[in-house]
């Protein structure tokens, strides 16, 4: 190997499992240019890359909507399942039961989750299924051309002048109340916060419910919208500054224990929440609920990690399932021997 004068091809950066960011990409997006969902797609790619997730080991799940199309635009090497409208939680549950070693990543919309899907959402949260559940929340049904969804704020106005007259559902408040163990809200435009939250979600073994405000540039990004880029930038109020140290990075990051709380995650990573304007304990469930209830009354648009709980057992634990994925159990494990059938037959004589 002699020294040459040709400029070396820059080696693309690899992550700790040796893959490059290209290995995490998906198909070309067919969403509108500027759609918030595309930014979230980018952050999911980055987070999976930076966390060194094996793409083949991911199951991408979604319902129906512009948002629910996104899984086609990241992690091409993963299996994906774009199911039916509002019922992704049940599909995800089946997937995780069949193979709990998969990293299950659900992407949904506010209509998909809070309108048609709220029933399955409620029961999913109760089960604390190990699943990352990302709501790409634009307050409207993008794919059917912009009707209000159930997360639209009271008084929000469509381009057509129609005003929303029903109160919004706060999916974060609901999730905390019902049993999710990692609950956060972010903004598609906030690269750093969203990336960090997603990385933490990959480290969590339980339901990570992340509501991401994700403006619909075509139907809900005008004056009068409360889910527009402008409105959110003007009104967003971060609750805490979210930091994350993955288990494979042995960096000792300086932090002030007076202002920063460290939460150890399931995989050995650390979540670091630095307080901003107010005292806040993200491990206190009642406090988290009160905070969001109040914010709602005051019209505050809080973002950050609201609640994290790494103690409550997840659904797989509760079911006492064998360690090997059910989908992969061999015949001898799932078909009892003939003697057992004979024994049962005998008992029925």
């Amino acid at each position, binding site marked *: 190997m002699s020294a040459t004068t040709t400029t070396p091809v820059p080696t693309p950066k690899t992550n700790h499992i040796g893959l490059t960011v290209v290995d995490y990409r998906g198909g070309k997006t067919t969403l509108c240019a500027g759609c918030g969902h595309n930014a979230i797609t980018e952050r999911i790619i980055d987070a999976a890359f930076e966390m060194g997730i094996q793409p083949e080991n991911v199951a991408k799940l979604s319902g129906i909507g512009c948002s629910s199309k996104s899984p*086609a635009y990241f992690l091409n090497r993963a*299996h*994906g399942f774009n199911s039916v409208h509002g019922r992704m939680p049940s599909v995800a549950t*089946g997937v995780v039961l069949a193979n709990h070693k998969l990293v299950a990543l659900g992407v949904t919309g506010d209509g998909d989750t809070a309108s048609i899907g709220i029933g399955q959402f409620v029961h999913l949260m109760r089960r604390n299924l190990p699943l990352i559940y990302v709501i790409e929340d634009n307050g409207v049904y993008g794919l059917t051309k912009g009707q209000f969804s159930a997360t639209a704020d009271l008084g929000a106005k469509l381009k057509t002048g129609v005003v929303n007259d029903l109160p919004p559902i706060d999916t974060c408040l609901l999730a905390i109340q019902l049993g999710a163990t990692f609950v956060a809200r972010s903004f598609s435009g906030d690269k750093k916060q969203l990336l960090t939250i997603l990385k933490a979600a990959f480290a969590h073994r339980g339901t990570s419910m992340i509501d991401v405000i994700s403006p619909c540039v075509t139907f809900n990004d005008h004056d009068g919208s409360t889910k527009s880029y402008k409105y959110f930038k003007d009104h967003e109020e971060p609750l805490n500054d979210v930091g994350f140290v993955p288990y494979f990075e042995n960096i000792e990051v300086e932090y002030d224990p007076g202002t920063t709380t460290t939460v150890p995650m399931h995989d050995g990573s650390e979540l670091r929440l630095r307080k901003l304007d107010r005292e806040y304990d993200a491990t206190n469930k009642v406090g988290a609920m009160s905070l969001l209830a109040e914010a709602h009354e005051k019209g505050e648009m809080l973002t950050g990690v609201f609640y994290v709980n790494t103690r409550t057992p997840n659904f797989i634990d509760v079911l006492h*399932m064998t360690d090997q994925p059910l989908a992969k159990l061999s015949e001898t494990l799932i078909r009892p021997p003939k003697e057992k059938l004979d024994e049962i037959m005998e008992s029925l004589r």
Partner: protein
Amino acid sequence: MATFDLTIEDRKTTSSEQHRIVNDFSIQVATVNGSGSQSANTVLLRSIFQMGVPVSGKNLFPSNIAGLPTWYTIRASKQGYIARKKEIDFLVAMNAETGREDVMGIRPGSVCVYDEPLKLSALRDDLIFYPVPFDKLVAPVCPDAKLRRLVKNMLYVGVVDYLLDVDPAESEKALVKHFAKKKKAAELNTAAIRAGYDYARATFEQQCPFSIERMNKNQGKLIIDGNAAAALGSMFAGVTVVTWYPITPSSSLVEQLIDYLKKYRIGSDGKATFAVVQAEDELAAVGMVIGAGWAGARSMTSTSGPGISLMAEFVGLGYYAEVPAVIFDIQRVGPSTGLPTRTMQGDILKCAFLSHGDTRHILLFPASVEECFGFAIEAFELAEKFQTPVFVMSDLDLGMNNWMADPFTYPDKPINRGKVLSEEDLQRLGGFARYKDVDGDGIPYRTLPGTNHPQAGYFTRGSGHNEKAQYSERQDDYVNNVDRLARKLDTARSFVPAPVLEGTGTQVGVIAYGSSHWAILETRDQLSREVQLQVDYLRVRGYPFSKQVREFIEGHDRVYVVEQNRDGQMLELLKLDLPAEQLVKLRSVRHYNGLPIDARSVTDAIISQESKGVN
């Protein structure tokens, strides 16, 4: 024609016959539900079973938890007829509310045991009455007054034993089995049977015209309900993910499956090789099944009519995205909530075409508890072979009633997961096209999530896709795909359980399926005996229909399609499938009042249609 015993089937029996009728009659017990009568009836059924006499029991219970009228019909038949018998020969009237109607409804010459205070003997003078003061008898047997309501019913077992010459030792044996884990209850109830027996022996002088005599017909047989049999089948099929939402008459399938799984499917690590989830409703239940099937589990759910309706959207996804799923439909009387505790074969057409758009599904029709077991296994095999939802069409009669059966056969083939490509396969092939018809049978290859190969991943969707599972709205891709799906379902004709033929070539055929089977066996004998009509019988066991179904119809002049619904749903499916020129041969016999079908009704309907002449 061979001679035959004068039996109750002969409509010419007189009330003044001289000899006793042995091992060929029906008993009906009228009580209220929640009163312990179910235990008493099970013991009675088992007693006769243990006497070696073929027997069947039908529970007719209300959609309610306690206090409403319930009937239990037991039929003993030396010929082995185990369909419901229309006429009641022996009534046990315990329910004040229905006593009058119960007594008025039975044929002259029958027997009526009744609770003395009901004073039923005043109603008719053409029956043989045996009044029993149950309340008086129960008090000394059962000191705890609160339990008397329950124990009282066991008394009639003793009374009936005496009247019918059933060996009370058999009842005590049955009772010990029934209360296997409840010693105190077993003792109390044994005492009740004895008290009833002793009272009857001491009191009743007139000989009962009916009698049970020991036979040896039940050698090796056992008793089980269809839901337990289907549960066992599922367990031995290797089911790993089970989801459900409670609904009568399906609940007991999953409830019994849970018990079996807990007992037989805990691995050496002490952990479960299965997951059972009580879902929030049927949409979620079937969604989980689809998710699990996609990810490689053998997954199932069980439901009844209303649940089937709620599953419509997901089942269409399963068909179009090609995901294996097993769905048990334990049919009950619809439409809507209907009569939730009565039986019907009312979802046949609905399940065949469930979901919007051009869809078509595989259905299996078990007729016996043995087939509930065997078809459960078959359903999992077919679901994975064809990568599509498969319905097992059981019903309340089959699922919830006790049936005699031969011991189930252990599966003779290893589990076959269908066309699943492994890492090694992909290595060899260098990739695959998820929806391509490689083998010409319409069935494509799939990979499971988590398969560690960069070409393994694909995107599953209910929207348009091409052979490579890429999103497509192209006309040719769409047509290719749905034509292949049609081809795939056509392939299934040769793989669903083939129909079973009985008979040796006459002009008249009968087609039936599922729990109607037992009435047809008897109807064939009735037709032969009563009007000298020999009919061939084809029992359909799967949809899409095997080619034998068509051949059977082609081979006959006229074919009666017998079923338990108003609209003749199987006949409708046949009409859609057969060449038009065969359809003129089809005639319909339907029974849809919620009671299990009986031979008499079928026979009469066929005789009546036959007498209208051949057209």
